[in-house]
């Protein structure tokens, strides 16, 4: 049961190895955020600090859709797991 630097047994290992690191989270409702991961559970409920959230606001124009982004920062945030689509750890390169 040794977890080598690349070998992970289950998807949650990827998240566990990202504790105290800055992660990228893609959420339902055209939202994304980065933050430092401090806690998670099996539902993918997350607790992040130093969060920057980006909301994509798509407005359908006559010719083409325009995308506006709204950004905001939050100190400490609980994210409910059912909104999570994807979590990506910082690239280990």
């Amino acid at each position, binding site marked *: 049961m040794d977890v080598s630097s690349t070998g*992970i*047994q*289950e*998807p*949650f*290992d*990827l*998240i566990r190895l990202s504790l105290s690191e800055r992660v*990228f989270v893609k959420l339902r409702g055209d939202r994304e955020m980065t933050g430092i991961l401090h806690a998670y559970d099996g539902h*993918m409920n997350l607790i992040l600090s130093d969060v920057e959230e980006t909301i994509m606001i798509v407005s359908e124009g006559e010719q083409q859709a325009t995308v506006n982004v709204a950004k905001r920062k939050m100190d400490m945030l609980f994210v409910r*797991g*059912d909104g*999570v*689509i*994807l*979590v*990506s*750890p*910082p*690239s*280990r*390169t």
Partner: protein
Amino acid sequence: MDESPPPPDVQSPPPPPPSHTGSPTDFLKGVVGKKVIVRLNSGVDYRGILSCLDGYMNIALEQTEEHVEGKITNRYGDAFIRGNNVLYISAAEEL
């Protein structure tokens, strides 16, 4: 007559069946470590190497590209995808 005797292995177990006859579980076991396309309910595709997955279809991918309407919109070294968003997993190379 140089007819060689019938091969002795007629009664040995048959070779493993081709992967396309296996169960869904066999398929999933077979694609771990391979290039896959994961399509989400939203229609977004993720192409990458399948590191592993669990019973909820939570997925860990490596060297992932996010494709939206045929265009690459993001790249991730590693990506965890929450299983409830997954529509299908498709093998992107020969098994």
